[in-house]
């Protein structure tokens, strides 16, 4: 079951993206995030399951994220992204309801130009699909700062290379606060605030998209 968001791609709009829920049969929560028509990131979530004694936490669920690149073995970059994703998910999942359990989220990168924001969106949809109790939703938005100083949302791979700086934000659904921020390249403080404001605006589109894809799923039955 797929939901497609047809947003005209332009300078300050997001490229068309879509999402498929329920593609894999075994995981408890699964989502595929597609950029245009190319599948970008596949997410599978297992949990809450029994945790290994060495890893279990007495008061909340132990969340683990595994990010697999398209080619090669996971390296230092994947580990650092796993940490970002894990702490973002930990901030929204109500782990206190499932102590001494483990929640595992596995993300497989399918396309070459996969941005961290695709992983974030796929992770959030997988969390929704699995029915885990969440305090808020989040979405990932990438902004690129062009050499001439303009802000470009959701850059393509080519635009990313030409950009002066790339900023990725995870925006929460309650009050549009910043859950996660990471930057590549340097920028001034005003430029960062501009990008943040643009990202918060784009977050509304993505949250509406979540709502539509979930509605299709529930109102179908």
């Amino acid at each position, binding site marked *: 079951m797929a939901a497609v968001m047809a947003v005209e791609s332009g300078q300050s709009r997001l490229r068309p993206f879509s999402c498929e829920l329920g593609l894999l049969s075994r995981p408890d929560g699964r989502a595929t995030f597609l950029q245009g028509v190319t599948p970008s990131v596949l997410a599978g979530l297992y949990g809450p399951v029994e945790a290994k004694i060495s890893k279990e936490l007495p008061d909340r669920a132990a969340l683990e994220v595994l990010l697999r690149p398209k080619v090669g073995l996971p390296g230092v970059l994947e580990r650092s992204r796993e940490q970002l994703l894990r702490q973002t998910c930990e901030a929204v999942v109500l782990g206190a309801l499932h102590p001494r359990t483990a929640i595992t989220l596995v993300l497989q990168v399918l396309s070459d130009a996969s941005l961290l924001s695709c992983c974030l969106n796929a992770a959030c949809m997988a969390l929704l699909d699995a*029915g885990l109790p969440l305090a808020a939703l989040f979405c990932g938005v990438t902004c690129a700062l062009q050499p001439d100083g303009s802000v470009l949302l959701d850059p393509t791979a080519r635009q990313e290379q030409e950009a002066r700086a790339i900023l990725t934000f995870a925006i929460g*659904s309650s009050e549009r606060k910043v859950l996660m921020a990471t930057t590549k390249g340097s920028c001034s403080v005003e430029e960062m605030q501009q990008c943040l404001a643009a990202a918060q605006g784009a977050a509304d589109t993505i949250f509406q998209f979540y709502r539509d894809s979930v509605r299709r799923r529930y*109102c179908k039955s």
Partner: protein
Amino acid sequence: MRRRAARRPRPWWGSGAARDLLLLPAQYDEDAEGDGCGSARAERRRGAAVRAGAAALRAGLLVTKCGLLRHRPAGGGAFWVDSQQKRYVPVKGDHVIGIVTAKAGDVFRLDVGGSEPASLSYLAFEGATKRNRPNVQVGDLIYGQFLVANKDMEPEMVCIDSSGKSSGMGIIGQDGFLFKVSLGLIRKLLAPKCEIIQELSQLYPFELVLGMNGRIWVKAKTVQQTLIIVNILEACEYMSAEQRKQALAKLSGNR
């Protein structure tokens, strides 16, 4: 048609007025407050999590799962969020099908599909005493209900109700077929006057046990009939009503 009605627990939620309000996490449930149904007491958590606990942190209720908002006006009013899920989390009072994985002294360990195995004492069967132990082997299927199920303790199951009668619970017999479906389908099947069950019962006679943990046990006269019923039930997750009627018509035509 032979159906053990005693094995089907009566659903408590009735036919919720389809209020078709889709809720996503981190939304405030304004309607519940607006109706003033004493909702702070009245919310039940059936695949739902309209959290009263969160009211301590913020004013109002916080939605924590996505799904449709349902409402039952009877008995003081109850609001809940009907969500679809595959992973079962033990809830007190739920009737489930468990698989015996180990016998540890006086207690059986059952796999119920949750994060921890549940325990079942050998005395929790109808007519069981210290001399008269139930004949339970590893690998048997047990239909029971949760006596204790919260996040801090290991879940405990029993096969008798509060008056000591088994009322359909206990060891499920030999043969038959056990398979897993999503929790939403189970709830649909357990609704009164469920179309799917009625249509299937026109097809062949069969025995059916539905566990709230997503497990279904089916037994019909022959293996082939059993497998046909299993396939139809599994496909009901994705098929619409017309497709199902078509498939059933084809099958009854083939008989």
